[in-house]
C-alpha cells in the first residue's frame, strides 16, 4: 500500500460517514464520532505499514513527499484528531444546545465528519512539497475549519468567531496565492526543491517579496504576531473541540508547511540571513506579545488562546535558528516541541470541558475550590499547568529547553531574552489557575462529576507529561532523531 492511501482512507471514511449520518436517529449521532475514531485508529495502524511508493510514479512524487518528518506529522495529526473526537464526544451536550433543535443531538453528526476532512487536508500538508499541492491541502483544511468554528449557529459568540475567522482567513489565503504567484513568476516553478536552485542575485528581491507574502499567510495559520489578532476571539467563541483542534493540529500543520517553504530560502547563502532576520523578529514579537497579553486574562479559554500564540513564538525560535546539522536539527526540535504541546494542551482542553460541563463557565473563577471539590482532578490540573508553564521534570520543560538551546546556539540573543521574559510572565498567568484551585473557596462544594472517558484521557495525558518529563527519549524515537 502506498503512502497516499492514508489520506484516501480518511477522506473516504469521512464521505461514507456523512452519508450514514443522514439515516441516523438524533440519539445515535455520537456513533459517527465513534466510527470516525475507528477510521482514524485504522489509519494510524496503516501509517506504520505503508511502503514508500514507487519512484516511477512521477505524478505523485512531484507533489507528495514521504520522509520521517511527513510520517511523524501524519501520525501527529491523526492522534490530534482522535483526541479531538474524544473531546467532542464529551462536549456534545453543550454543542447540541446551539444546533438545529436545541437539546436534541440532531445536527451534530456533520461536526464529527468535518474533522475527518480537515485531518485529511493536514495529513496531505505534511507531505506537500509543491506550492500547488500545499495550497490545495491548506484550503481543504481552512474551509472545513470555517464551518467547525461557526458550528454552534444559535450561539452569538460562535457565529462571530466564524465570521471573523472567515474574513481574516480569506485575506490570508489571498496573501498566500499572491506570494506563490510571485515566486512562480521569479523562478518558473512551483516545486520547492527546484526553487532553491533557482535563486540568483537578479530574482532574489522578487523571491523575498513572495516569501514575505507567504510568511504573512503562514503567520496567520500558526498564530504569530502580527497576524494573531483573530486567535483570542475565534478560540473563545468556537466550540471547545474546534478550539483544541485549531490550536494544536492546525498550528502543527502550519509549522510543517512553514518548514517546507522556508527550507530552500533559509539555506540559501544569498538571502538566508534576511530570512533569519524576518523570522527572528516574528519570534521575538510573538513571544513578547503572546505572553504579556495573557497576563490580564480572566477567561481560561482566552488564556489558552494567548498561550497558543506564545507557544507559536517558542516554536519560531528553533525555526529562526535554522540548523540542519548532524546532532539535532531545527525540524526535530519543532516536532519535539509540538509533540509535547499536543499532550499538555489537549489535557488542558479536556479539563476545561469538564469544568464547563459542571459549572457552565470557562472563566478562571470556575476553577475556584477545585482542590476541595475534586482533589485528583485538581492535582492533575496542577501538573498540566506546571507543564504549560515549563516547570522542570514535566514534559513541558523539555520543549522550551530545547527551543532555547537551539536559539542560544543560533545566537538569537534578543528573541531569547524576550523568550525568558515570556516564561517568567507565563509562571504568573498559568499559576492563577493553581491559585484559584487551591487558595480560593468555591461557592459550591458539591463534588464534581466527570465522565469516565474524560477522566481516563486526562489521567493518561497527565501521566505522559510526568513520564516524558523524566525520560523524553521516546519522542526522539518517534521523530526518528
Amino acid at each position, binding site marked *: 500500500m502506498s503512502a497516499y492511501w492514508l489520506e484516501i482512507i480518511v477522506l473516504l471514511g469521512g464521505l461514507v460517514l456523512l452519508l450514514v449520518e443522514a439515516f441516523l436517529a438524533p440519539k445515535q449521532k455520537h456513533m459517527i464520532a465513534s466510527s470516525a475514531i475507528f477510521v482514524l485508529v485504522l489509519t494510524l495502524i496503516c501509517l506504520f505499514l505503508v511502503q514508500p511508493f514507487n519512484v516511477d510514479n512521477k505524478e505523485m512524487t512531484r507533489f507528495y513527499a514521504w520522509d520521517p518528518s511527513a510520517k511523524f506529522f501524519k501520525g501527529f495529526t491523526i492522534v490530534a484528531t482522535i483526541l479531538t473526537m474524544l473531546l467532542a464526544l464529551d462536549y456534545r451536550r453543550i454543542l447540541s444546545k446551539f444546533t438545529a433543535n436545541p437539546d436534541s443531538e440532531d445536527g451534530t453528526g456533520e461536526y464529527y465528519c468535518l474533522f475527518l476532512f480537515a485531518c485529511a487536508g493536514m495529513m496531505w500538508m505534511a507531505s506537500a512539497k509543491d506550492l500547488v499541492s500545499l495550497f490545495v491541502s491548506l484550503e481543504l483544511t481552512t474551509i472545513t475549519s470555517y464551518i467547525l468554528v461557526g458550528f454552534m449557529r444559535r450561539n452569538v459568540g460562535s457565529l462571530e468567531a466564524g465570521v471573523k475567522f472567515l474574513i481574516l482567513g480569506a485575506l490570508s489565503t489571498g496573501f498566500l496565492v499572491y506570494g506563490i504567484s510571485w515566486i512562480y513568476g521569479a523562478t518558473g516553478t512551483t516545486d520547492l526543491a527546484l526553487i532553491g536552485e533557482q535563486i540568483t542575485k537578479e530574482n532574489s528581491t522578487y523571491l523575498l517579496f513572495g516569501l514575505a507574502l507567504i510568511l504573512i499567510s503562514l503567520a496567520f495559520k500558526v498564530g504569530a504576531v502580527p497576524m494573531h489578532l483573530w486567535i483570542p476571539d475565534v478560540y473563545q467563541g468556537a466550540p471547545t473541540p474546534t478550539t483544541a483542534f485549531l490550536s494544536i493540529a492546525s498550528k502543527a500543520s502550519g509549522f510543517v508547511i512553514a518548514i517546507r517553504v522556508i527550507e530552500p530560502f533559509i539555506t540559501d547563502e544569498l538571502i538566508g540571513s534576511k530570512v533569519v532576520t524576518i523570522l527572528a523578529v516574528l519570534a521575538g514579537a510573538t513571544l513578547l506579545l503572546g505572553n504579556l497579553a495573557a497576563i490580564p486574562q480572566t477567561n481560561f479559554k482566552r488564556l489558552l488562546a494567548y498561550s497558543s500564540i506564545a507557544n507559536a513564538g517558542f516554536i519560531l525560535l528553533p525555526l529562526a535558528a535554522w540548523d540542519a546539522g548532524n546532532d539535532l536539527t531545527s525540524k526535530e526540535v519543532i516536532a519535539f516541541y509540538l509533540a509535547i504541546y499536543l499532550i499538555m494542551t489537549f489535557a488542558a482542553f479536556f479539563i476545561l470541558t469538564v469544568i464547563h460541563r459542571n459549572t457552565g463557565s470557562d472563566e478562571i473563577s470556575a476553577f475556584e475550590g477545585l482542590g476541595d471539590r475534586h482533589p485528583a482532578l485538581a492535582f492533575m490540573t496542577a501538573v498540566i499547568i506546571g507543564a504549560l508553564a515549563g516547570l522542570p521534570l514535566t514534559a513541558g520543560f523539555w520543549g522550551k529547553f530545547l527551543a532555547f538551546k537551539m536559539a*542560544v546556539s543560533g545566537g538569537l540573543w534578543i528573541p531569547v531574552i524576550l523568550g525568558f521574559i515570556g516564561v517568567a510572565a507565563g509562571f*504568573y498567568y498559568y499559576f492563577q489557575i493553581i491559585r484559584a484551585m487551591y*487558595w480560593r473557596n468555591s461557592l459550591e462544594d458539591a463534588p464534581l462529576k466527570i465522565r469516565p472517558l474524560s477522566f481516563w484521557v486526562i489521567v493518561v495525558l497527565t501521566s505522559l507529561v510526568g513520564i516524558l518529563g523524566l525520560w*523524553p527519549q521516546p519522542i526522539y524515537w518517534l521523530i526518528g532523531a
Partner: protein
Amino acid sequence: MSIILILIPILAAIAILIGGKAKPIALGAATLNLILGLGSAFSFDHSVWGLTLQVLSEPNIHLSLGFYDGMSMIMVALSVLVLFAAVMSGKCPEGREKLWYPSILLIAAGGIGAFLSRDLFFFYAFHELALIPTFLMIGMLGSGERKEAAWKITIYLALGSIILLAGLIWLVAASGAETWLFEDLLASTIDPSAQKGIAALLIVGFGVLISLFPFHSWAAPAYASAPAPVAMLHAGVLKKFGLYGLIRLYPMVSDGMQAWLGVLIVLLLCNILWIGYVTINQKRLDMMLGNSSVMHMGYIFLAFAALIEAGSFAANPLAKPAAVLLMFAHGVSIALLFMLTDTIRRKTGTVELAELGGLAKAAPRLAFLFGLGAMASIGLPGLANFSGEVLVFLSGFHAYEGGGLGPVQIATVLALWGVVISAVYMLRAFRQTFHGPAVSHTDSNHLKDFGPFCQIPAAVLAVALLIVGLFPNSLLNLLKSPEAPAPTEQAAE
C-alpha cells in the same frame, strides 16, 4: 542506590495521598532517610551509591545520582537532619494532612535530589520541583499575609530560576562539553570573553535564590508566613542550593567571576550590615529570624568572595570548607530556631516580642534549646556556626601578606561588625521572650514545657550543632577526601 534517599520521601508522599496514615508514614520515611542519609554520607563508597542513566541523547543528559564530593555529602546530611526535624515537630492543621506531609516530603526530596545530582540538568530540575510545594504550602497553610508572601516568593524565585537557567544553558553551550555531567563540564574550559556574562547570570540567578541583596525582599515575609516545617526546609536546606551551585560551578567561570568581585563585595556587605540593622528593628520573632537568615548569607558570600579573589580552590584552601561548614551550621541552627519559634507561637498564640516575656520559668527546656540555637546563630565558640565563621574570616585574610588591605580584607573587617549586630538582636529577642516578668499567656499556670515531639528533633539538631562545633573536622574531613573517580557503569539508554 542513592536514589533511595529521593524515592523514600516521594513514595511516602504518594502513600499518604492515596490514603495511608499521614503522620506515621511521614515520620517513618523521615527517620529512615535520616539513618540512611547520615549512614551513606559518612561511609562514602561510589560503587555502591552511584547511578547513571541516560534520559536524553541530544543534548546529552543523564539522571546521575550519587555523591559528587564531600560537599554533596554534607548537604545531604543537612537535608535529612532538617527533614526529620520538620516532619516530627510540625503541627498539621486539622484535616489538611494530605497536603501538609506530602508537601514537606516533596520539598525534602527535591532538595536531596539536587544535592545528589551529578548532572547539571537534574541539579536544577530537582530544586525547581521542591519550590512548587513550597509555594503551595505558604499560600494555603501559611499564616498572616500568606497570599502576598506566597505570590512574592513565587515570582521572585521563578524569575531567579529562569535567569539561572539562561546562565546554565549558556554555560554548557560555551563549554563545548559532551554531556551535562559535572565531571565533563568541570573538565572543560570556557572562553574568557563568554565567562563574564555567564558569571553575571549565575550570580543574579543563584543570588535571587539565596536572597542576596537586593534580591532578598521575598525571604523574610515568606519565612514569617510559611508553616514552620516549610520555613525550616527552605531557609535550612533549599537556600543552600544556590551557594552549592555557585561553589560547584565556580571553577568553570573563575575568570568571569573576577570581574564581579567588587560588586559582589558591596552586595554581601549590604546583606550583612544593612539587613543586620533591619533585623535589629524587627518586632516579631519570626520576621527577625527570617531577616537574620538573609543576613547570614552574607558571610557565606564573603567566603565565596575570598575564593574569587584567590582564583581557585587550591589558592585559598580555606574558602570552600569555610563556606560549606557555615552552610551546614546555618542550616541546622535556623531550622532549630524556626522550629522553636513555632512552638512558642503554638503555646502562647503570639510571636510579637512586645507581648512575650518570662517564658523561661514555665518552659525551661524550651528556653535552654532556644538559647543554644540563638548562641549558635551569634557564633559562640563551641557551636558549629563559630567554626564556620572563624574559617570565613580566616579565608578572607588568607591571601593577605602585610601592607595595605585588599577589598576582601576590608570587607572581612566590616563583616566582623555583623557578629555584634547578631548578638544585639538575638540576645534582645531572647531576653524579651524568655526573661523579664511573665505575662498572662506565658506564665506557668497557662502553659507547660514543650512535649517530646518537639524535644527530640530539637535535641537532634542541637547535638549536631555541638558535635560540629566541638569537632569541625567531622565534616571537614569529608571535604578533604580526594574527589572519587566517576562511576563508569552506564545503564540502558
